[in-house]
């Protein structure tokens, strides 16, 4: 069984307009006014607030287990709990199982009814003005890319909870075999991608340039392929140290020349595999082994260099930031970056919270990734010379910054004035970015 798409409802922004119920009633009965035919039910909760009774398409659905007729089945392909009118005997036992009021009997309808997601194209979502209803299709992305060949060897030795390993596997599944990969020193080769014990860690050509010359070596290879008339993707998988410190000169040069390469930077805010030293991408106040916390020093004293902004200022063909919690956004950007790298320089900046170096439990990586974006600690956007900067996730209702900082050990010592400084920096940075929106 794969992962499934799902309908989502956000009660906090629902307007209670009822358009979804009309659309559902129309889709199911042809008559928009027959609310009894709607399979999504918006219920008033007082104070102009609303709640919904809506099928969750449970994985372990009690309606299915309660059905004595075999009329309900969890569809292994779509994930939808399917109802078979032919087999149903209207015993209502399914309605005993459902704790959400989502498979119900209306006497006017004459049988039980439940949401079938309109076969994967739900009518209700399309008419929802507030965005309270959503149809999350991330699952199908996982399923689709899950079918592509994993081009890294199994058992890479990344730390437990590292999302970089996850993301490089995603990237190569999408990019495919027709690629040459540059992996400069950092966690990515450290986990074994370029090889260990004489064995390659990737199933595609991969090499290990110096930190300083990643972009220039890759550009040279790409030009050679082009001269031979071969269309091979030139891909760099670098860390933030390799991109924003030591390797910055060659990176900046390649971007300025518009080399046809796709440069991915996995930003874990430091040199983590060598012992958690700070880099120019390490955020203000962070504990690292070179910015310790003691009598004098309270973590890093300077702000992080914002490399994606710097790359944008190169007027590269495509620049974007992405996070592993918003995979649809990530894949869209990866596709655009790949296409752009055929004509110019493409730069994709991926946020990669590091459980070992940042000091949070390995099981919380994805939560940290999410909080990072939702608190506006980082923002997700993309830039092309034609469109300017476009935010790909709203920045107007951030979660409190403290919720993010508190989740991470490297900020544990922060005094209020340090937190205030980070807040101010983030506000200034957001304001600056907004000026690039056309």
């Amino acid at each position, binding site marked *: 069984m794969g992962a499934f798409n799902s309908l989502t409802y956000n009660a906090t922004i629902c307007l209670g307009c009822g358009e979804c119920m009309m659309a559902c009633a129309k889709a199911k009965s042809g008559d928009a006014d027959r609310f009894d035919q709607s399979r999504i*039910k918006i219920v008033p*909760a007082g104070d102009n607030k609303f709640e919904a009774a809506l099928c969750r398409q449970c994985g372990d659905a009690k309606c299915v*287990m*309660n059905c*004595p007729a075999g009329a309900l089945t969890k569809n292994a392909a779509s994930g939808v709990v399917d109802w078979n009118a032919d087999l149903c005997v209207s*015993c209502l036992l399914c309605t*005993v199982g459902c704790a959400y*009021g989502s498979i*119900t009997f209306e006497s006017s309808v004459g049988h039980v009814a439940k949401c079938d997601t309109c076969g994967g194209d739900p009518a209700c979502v399309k008419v929802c003005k507030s965005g309270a209803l959503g149809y999350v299709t991330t699952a199908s992305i996982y399923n689709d890319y899950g079918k592509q060949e994993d081009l890294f060897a199994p058992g890479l030795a990344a730390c437990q909870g590292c999302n970089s390993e996850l993301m490089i596997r995603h990237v190569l599944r999408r990019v495919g075999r027709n690629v040459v990969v540059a992996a400069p020193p950092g966690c990515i080769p450290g986990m074994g991608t370029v090889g260990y014990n004489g064995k390659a860690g990737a199933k595609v050509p991969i090499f290990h340039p110096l930190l300083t010359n990643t972009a220039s070596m890759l550009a040279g290879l790409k030009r050679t392929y082009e001269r031979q008339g071969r269309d091979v993707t030139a891909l760099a998988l670098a860390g933030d140290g390799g991109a924003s410190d030591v390797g910055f000169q060659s990176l900046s040069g390649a971007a300025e020349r518009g080399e046809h390469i796709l440069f991915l930077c996995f930003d874990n805010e430091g040199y983590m595999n060598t012992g958690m030293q700070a880099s120019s991408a390490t955020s203000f106040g962070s504990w690292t082994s070179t910015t310790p916390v003691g009598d004098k020093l309270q973590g890093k004293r300077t702000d992080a260099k914002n490399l994606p902004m710097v790359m944008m200022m190169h007027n590269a063909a495509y620049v974007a930031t992405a996070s592993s919690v918003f995979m649809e956004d990530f894949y869209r950007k990866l596709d655009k970056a790949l296409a752009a790298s055929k004509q110019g320089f493409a730069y994709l900046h991926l946020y990669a919270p590091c459980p070992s170096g940042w000091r949070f439990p390995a099981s919380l990586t994805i939560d940290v990734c999410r909080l990072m974006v939702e608190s506006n600690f980082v923002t997700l956007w993309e830039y092309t010379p034609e469109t300017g900067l476009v935010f790909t996730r709203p920045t107007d209702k951030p979660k409190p910054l403290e919720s993010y900082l508190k989740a991470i050990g490297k900020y544990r010592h922060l005094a209020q004035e340090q937190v205030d400084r980070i807040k101010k920096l983030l506000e200034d940075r957001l304001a600056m970015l907004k000026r690039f929106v056309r």
Partner: protein
Amino acid sequence: MQSCTYLIVGASHAGLAAADAIRMIDPASPLILASRDSHLPYSPTILPYVVSGRSKAERTALRSEAFFKEKSITFLRQAQLQSINAEKGLAHFDQGTSIRFDKLLLATGAAPSLPAIPGLGDVAFHVLRTMDDALGLKTAMKGARRALVLGAGLIGTHAAENMAEAGMTVSIVEPQMQLLPGYFDSQASSLIEKAFEGHGIDLKFGRSVASLKPGVAVLDDGQDVPFDLLLIATGVRPALSYLDGSGIRIDRGILVDERQRTNLPAVWAAGDCAQVRLFQSEGTGVAGILPMAVEQGRIAGQGMVDDEGQKPFPGAVSLNTYSFFGQQAISVGAGISGADSPGTETVLRFDEGAKTYLRLVLKEDRLVGAASVNHPLDPGILWQLILRQTDLSDVKERFLADPKTTGRLLMSRLWR
């Protein structure tokens, strides 16, 4: 001798829910699902619909052979459990077969219990618990005109409706003064009784059968009721003779704790054969309904496979939905079938003309029970409100006025 990690005896709701729960965690260890029946697994609840013809017997299977193959489950038909030696991990079946197990689930359900009526041994009669019972009844109905049903519980009323719809003359004899006693009060039942009488079914309340002779029942008031077909639906009881000498403790059913464990370490029991704690009253009992068999089966399976997600059984709640002649009735929880008990608050809405009835019972602003006829409710939500003992004081008026919408609102909120 066959041996397995998990042996499940009984291939209905409890047994299947357990098998699913086991396979969720352990996809490979040998699992044998044994049933004395010769059919693929089906639900006893579907049988009235097989009798009426609405469901085709061959389309009632809850699982297919392909499913068992895919899940590496060995499904044994026509294997009736005879005895157990739990110390040695041995289950002995009829025809001399034995199975060695590490863990055993007893999910053998219940069987019709027969009243002690003089002459019962001399007359042909039907019961309704297995597919073969249903098919036998269906065939017998073809040649019969007059049916007599003993017992006005869910099975008796379902079968009486089937037979009336098939054109037979039907009488029901019930010692109590109404249909479906225990599920509904007399007012709610009166709506159901109207439908029965409207379809020509003769309801003989407050009476019982004193003796039986071929073709005739003599009632306790002396009346003779002739019949061509006799159906006995006076209750069910687990049939547990296979436990004789096993050391497994029983009372009305197999005694289990809140994790469905019997007194022996490697043996679990679930569903209609198990005696479990009751959520709304002291003591224990046999739940006897499908949703509880599913719950218990799942908990037992989780225990057998050491699933960390296992939660104890909170106790049985009475949950019944009942369709009759195209109408619907629902009975959930306690306090809805008789007079109000002290400390409870009841809302009753009865409209004889519109054939609707609703009764809601609260205690200390928490839901105790709800019953309705032709009044839509979400029983699954009401069950949760009872189990969670949700404080309704903030929404009480709304809830009493519109339990359906208010219940949906509460569960949408509670679940986040």
